[in-house]
């Protein structure tokens, strides 16, 4: 007792409740995205071999370097451990043609986090999806390289003339611009099984629908994402693709090609679900997804590009704050407010 008096009363931490917190951390959320990307990585390794490693490493390195530099310039604590730069780098790599030069992939990664995120203030502050910012930059600067597709399984290395293959969406665009060609449309429809497995020309990680869906299921199970955005994207895309196909089946491929081709699935599950740049509330997220799906199809069918997912995402990112405003959830009991 006497000893205690000398020490004074024992003191404890005073803090605002709650005093316990869940297991989930932001780095773990990012890790779950990376785990979700694992099947697509395996598919890419099978389809494009060492090109996959080269692109992944250079893009991630670029993303991490720019993030580290940004923190340095702003005198901030390093944030690489939150894994968000790695996620950005991987997503960007997966959206690049397999034979894209590694130094430009590095540059693209650096633009993604540097311009796409750090300039806005780092994690959580950016308006646009960083990987899509990087990809837009690369598309603007190296347009030809960004649309040169490698046939899967070929082992051409950078510098050697690539064996190129039209992507299903590129083919679709050609048919559309030629005013329709029922025979070619048939040919395109026959590609459906390849689209499932990914045995077609396309971006590094986007070609295998099966691999992407596996990742999507993982994220849904882990509740890394909710169903609202993927469902919104697919519903939005179908809402455009189905009527277009019904109206002119001779010039527009069947909706399945549009869902499985290009970045649609990868985008719906992996890109559009970036939490930072989509609305907060579930309803807003669904509308956001709808917009992405509709805009993508608008660009693909009416616009000038074979693929429009990147632009659709960026456009919807831009209106995401407004969606937040429109879709504010209503407090429980607001309708029942008494007059008293």
């Amino acid at each position, binding site marked *: 007792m006497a000893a205690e008096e000398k020490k004074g*009363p*024992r*003191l*404890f*931490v*005073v*803090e*605002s*409740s*709650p*005093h*316990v*917190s*869940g297991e*989930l*951390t*932001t780095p*773990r*959320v990012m890790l779950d995205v990376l785990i979700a990307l694992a099947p697509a990585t395996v598919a890419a390794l099978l389809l494009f071999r060492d090109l996959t490693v080269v692109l992944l490493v250079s893009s991630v390195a670029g993303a991490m370097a720019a993030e580290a530099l940004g923190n340095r310039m702003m005198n901030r604590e390093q944030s690489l451990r*939150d894994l*968000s730069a790695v996620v950005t780098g991987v997503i960007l790599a997966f959206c690049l043609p397999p034979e894209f030069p590694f130094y430009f992939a590095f540059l693209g990664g650096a633009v993604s986090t540097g311009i796409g995120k750090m300039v806005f203030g*780092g*994690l*959580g*502050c950016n308006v646009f999806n960083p990987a899509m910012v990087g990809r837009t930059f690369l598309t603007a600067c190296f347009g030809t390289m960004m649309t040169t597709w490698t046939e899967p399984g070929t082992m051409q290395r950078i510098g050697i003339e690539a064996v190129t293959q039209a992507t299903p969406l590129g083919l679709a665009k050609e048919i559309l611009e030629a005013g329709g060609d029922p025979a070619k449309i048939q040919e395109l429809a026959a590609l459906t099984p390849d689209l499932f497995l990914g045995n077609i020309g396309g971006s590094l990680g986007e070609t295998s629908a099966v691999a992407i869906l596996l990742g999507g299921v993982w994220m849904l199970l882990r*509740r890394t994402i*909710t169903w609202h955005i993927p469902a919104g994207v697919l519903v939005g895309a179908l809402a455009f693709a189905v009527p277009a196909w019904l109206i002119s089946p001779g010039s527009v491929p069947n909706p399945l090609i549009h869902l499985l081709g290009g970045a649609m699935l990868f985008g719906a599950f992996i890109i559009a679900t970036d*939490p*930072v740049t*989509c*609305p*907060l*509330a*579930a309803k807003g*997220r669904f509308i956001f997804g709808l917009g992405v799906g509709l805009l993508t199809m608008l660009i693909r069918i009416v616009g000038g590009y074979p693929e429009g997912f990147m632009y659709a995402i960026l456009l919807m990112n831009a209106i995401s704050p407004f969606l*937040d405003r429109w879709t*504010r*959830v*209503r*407090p*429980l*009991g*607001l*309708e*029942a*407010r*008494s*007059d*008293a």
Partner: protein
Amino acid sequence: MVSAKPIPEALEGRRFTFRGGVHPPEHKGIAEEKAIERVPLPPEIILPVAMHAGAPAKPIVEKKAAVERGQLVAEAGGFVSAPVHAPVSGTVTDVAPRPHQSGRMVTALLIKTDAEKTAEIIRREEAQTISADLDIGPFAPEQIVERVKNAGVVGLGGAAFPTFIKLTRNERKPTDIVLLNGSECEPYLTADYRVMLEQPAAVIAGLRLAMKATGASRGAIAIEDNKPDAAARLRETLRAANVPEGIEVCELRTKYPQGGERSLIPAVTGRAVPVGGFPPDIGVAILNVGTAAAVAAAVAYERPLIERVLTVTGPGIANPGNLLVPVGTPLSFLIEQRGGASEAVTKVVLGGPMMGPTAANLNLPVMKGMSGVTLLERAQTKAHRVLPCIRCGRCVDICPSGLMPALLARLGQRRRAEEAAGAHVLACVECGSCSYVCPSQIPLVQHIRTGKLLARQAQQKR
């Protein structure tokens, strides 16, 4: 008056739940098997005059006065207030400001215990039993309210709102149903569980008195489905007592914060409590199960609220338990009685870990609304690195009040009172679910509290 939806005909046999919520680890095993026991009388009692929501009570005894257990020592200080009674017989040694749970100094009566005299009165009280089929005929509604008021009964679930107000009839807002809240959704706490298990008759008698006072034709005891034996015990007691129909025991899915009245009432009745309103607005009176037992004692024997059951629990206590403790017992004495706090204890939480405030040291007394003392160690309270909000929306998805915690917290942090008020910051019940799920470990509730404070200040200015 709102046009109220009809309450479902039969509440038994259904599993009610609410939208949102979280599943923190329960940790109820630490104390749930421990039967309620009385702790030895503390040598000194610290009795604050503010142990309830509303105006503090006014002391009516002076220094050196001799008091008896149960004697009125401070009278209600307004309409929304409650009197305070001496929990022990003894001598008032001082009436002076003392540290209070709120963080401020609050006037308290210090009473030196006369153990012998107190024990004698306790023996007498223990002989007074309450049965579930208590004859409530002789008690008029007004008399029930009066006795509850005079006994200083307040909500034992935490908010400590004066119970008599909830029991008072209001012709403009008739009460359809009296709900007893036996959810006890806070992790660690088991006091309500033990009360239901060990004092089911008093709980039921209290419910019947509350129904009579309010004029409600229906009554229900709502219990989370992690306590099936408590529900079974109450059903058994009801059956055996053969009390009038209209009382049901219903089960709720175990999910935090099921025990919050704004989660419980809509779950069971289908009626949402209006934002800015209260349960009576929708024809509901809701009491904690322990409060119901206190109501029974207050009406049947005019026994004031001078002791309560609380859980002393957590990994940091040597001998956890559910204890019957005189109000005003210093925490230091209480913890000492249970083997003391371990060296690793970093936080003393008054109540459960989701909503309980913390005590800087153990010089605070047990209060009427204190449902537990949870001693958490370093392992449970490790400091987390706060990361930026990634707008994942988890807090929005789980908010039981249908709010956007991430947005409210940002507004609170930036001291934007008007906008926070516009986003209904005052509808937040501070249940802590948002902070619990936040992967970036942002203290959302803390920022929202700031927002609420500023919003209230802004309203008052206007």
